[in-house]
């Protein structure tokens, strides 16, 4: 029997596989009472207010079991947090920090109400990091050369345990590609963790903006809410393009302040130096950025997750009104309940 005689099995089994995959995810789990519980929490317990299970059942006319299931689901999705004392607390919809970083943020802002928290990814636009993918592409090229160039094929057959037929070679080369793929993915994971550790940014209702400036930093960078003069949002063409395809949208947030506690290493260059550098740049985005930074001292938070939402939060803070956030809390919570925890990756 030859391969050609049995070949038609492949598309048929692929279609069978598609149908199996489609059907096993057919059933959508419905959680009753989720809407009512979310409504109650967002209207009564939004700003770090603690509540007990009894408070929820008292406010709702739902059976205890239904409310319990809904709260359990919200807890499972990291929307509400339960303390050891049994109190529930809402994880703010725009806080994407890990539990440990959230505790750290609370401690360092003296228990302030954290209204936005995320990790910036300053390395994202570094083109040299694209070389991580070179490992994967190198293995593909290696496999293709070994498969189709006779001398390379003979060399690889010599390496494999004999007798090595073409199928043995094929499987070995596929494995080499897999090794390239897992190496790239592992390095990608490592870079994500590395950048996350360094670059947390939080916005507190009273403390303003705090951010890490070095490894193992404790939010030494600070911009008080009273000194924020201007806030701007900027999407570079690369970010705009990447946002179409990445799970987590990113963008730069530029903050100009009259007085900010910004360490020298990440403080912006003097306006004159900036202007000189930007003379050679021709893109519109580069010119706009140069103009923004040249006007006043400021800082750019690079590749922030959900920059538009961060921008609105800072504007709310600047205007001393958290109305926007309160209006959209329910929507954000429902969205968050979908399990979206941003972790920017390549």
């Amino acid at each position: 029997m030859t391969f050609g005689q049995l070949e038609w099995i492949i598309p048929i089994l692929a279609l069978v596989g598609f149908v199996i995959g489609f059907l096993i995810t057919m059933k959508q789990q419905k959680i009753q009472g989720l809407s009512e519980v979310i409504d109650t929490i967002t209207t009564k317990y939004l700003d770090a207010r603690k509540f007990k299970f009894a408070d929820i059942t008292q406010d709702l006319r739902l059976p205890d079991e239904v409310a319990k299931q809904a709260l359990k689901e919200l807890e499972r999705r990291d929307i509400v947090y339960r303390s050891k004392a049994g109190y529930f607390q809402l994880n703010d919809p725009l806080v994407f920090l890990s539990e440990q970083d959230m505790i750290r943020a609370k401690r360092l802002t003296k228990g302030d109400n954290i209204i936005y928290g995320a990790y910036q990814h300053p390395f994202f636009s570094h083109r040299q990091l694209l070389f991580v993918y070179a490992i994967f592409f190198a293995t593909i090229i290696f496999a293709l050369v070994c498969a189709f160039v006779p001398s390379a094929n003979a060399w690889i057959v010599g390496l494999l345990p004999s007798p090595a037929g073409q199928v043995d070679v094929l499987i070995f080369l596929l494995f080499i590609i897999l090794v390239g793929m897992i190496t790239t993915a592992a390095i990608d994971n490592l870079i994500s963790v590395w950048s996350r550790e360094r670059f947390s940014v939080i916005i507190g209702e009273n403390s303003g903006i705090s951010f890490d400036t070095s490894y193992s930093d404790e939010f030494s960078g600070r911009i008080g809410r009273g000194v924020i003069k201007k806030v701007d949002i900027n999407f570079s063409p690369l970010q705009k393009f990447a946002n179409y395809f990445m799970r987590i949208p990113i963008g730069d947030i530029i903050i100009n302040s009259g007085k900010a506690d910004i360490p020298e290493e990440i403080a912006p260059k003097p306006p004159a130096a900036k202007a000189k550098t930007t003379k050679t740049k021709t893109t519109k985005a580069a010119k706009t950025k140069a103009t923004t930074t040249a006007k006043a001292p400021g800082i750019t938070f690079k590749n922030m997750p959900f920059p538009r939402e961060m921008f609105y939060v800072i504007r709310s803070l600047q205007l001393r009104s958290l109305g926007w956030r309160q209006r959209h809390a329910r929507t954000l919570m429902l969205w968050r309940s979908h399990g979206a925890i941003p972790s920017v990756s390549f």
Partner: protein
Amino acid sequence: MAKDEALAEEGVDVLVKDITRGYKFRPLMQIVIVCIVIAAMIIFLQVIGTLNFTKQYNLAITTLVFFWVLSFLFPLILQTRGHRANQVSMGLYFASIFSLTTTIILLIVTQPIGIAPGTIALLIAFLTGIGSMLFEHLHPDAIGRTTKVYLGIFGVAVVFFICVWFYMQSITAGYGIWIAIVFTGLFAYSLLPDTPK
């Protein structure tokens, strides 16, 4: 109340779509791009001549290219997260794995000469690895920091390790276990959830 309930249980997807609307292509545009990718794939296969199914291997190549390219690009292009998208995504996952597994099994059973025993172990390692990677790519939300996920990763890592060790012993007996440890470490680390702890 009924409307609210519907919103919470079914409309979550709508709200998810809403919050990322400013950043993403519209859903219709996303579907158009998927169609363009499929059309480009068909043209490519036509140009290289694999759409002529009377020749041996062409049907297999076409099926593999179609499902693997689509399953790789699907989560990148279709950014609207919803139940239907999850279903299609899971369907593509199974289709890709089924097509690849069937092709390799057919290649083995139709071989005129025998296949080395270590190759079977390497094949299992490859299918375990590629299956896990593809699943993570298609369903990143499913890889959370839960006991079930960690146990799953441990399970596939053990299978991967045993198979790679078995194969490497036949190539380089002295260092086989060390190479297997390094590869398994990389493999397990690449699968670990990259969401913050």
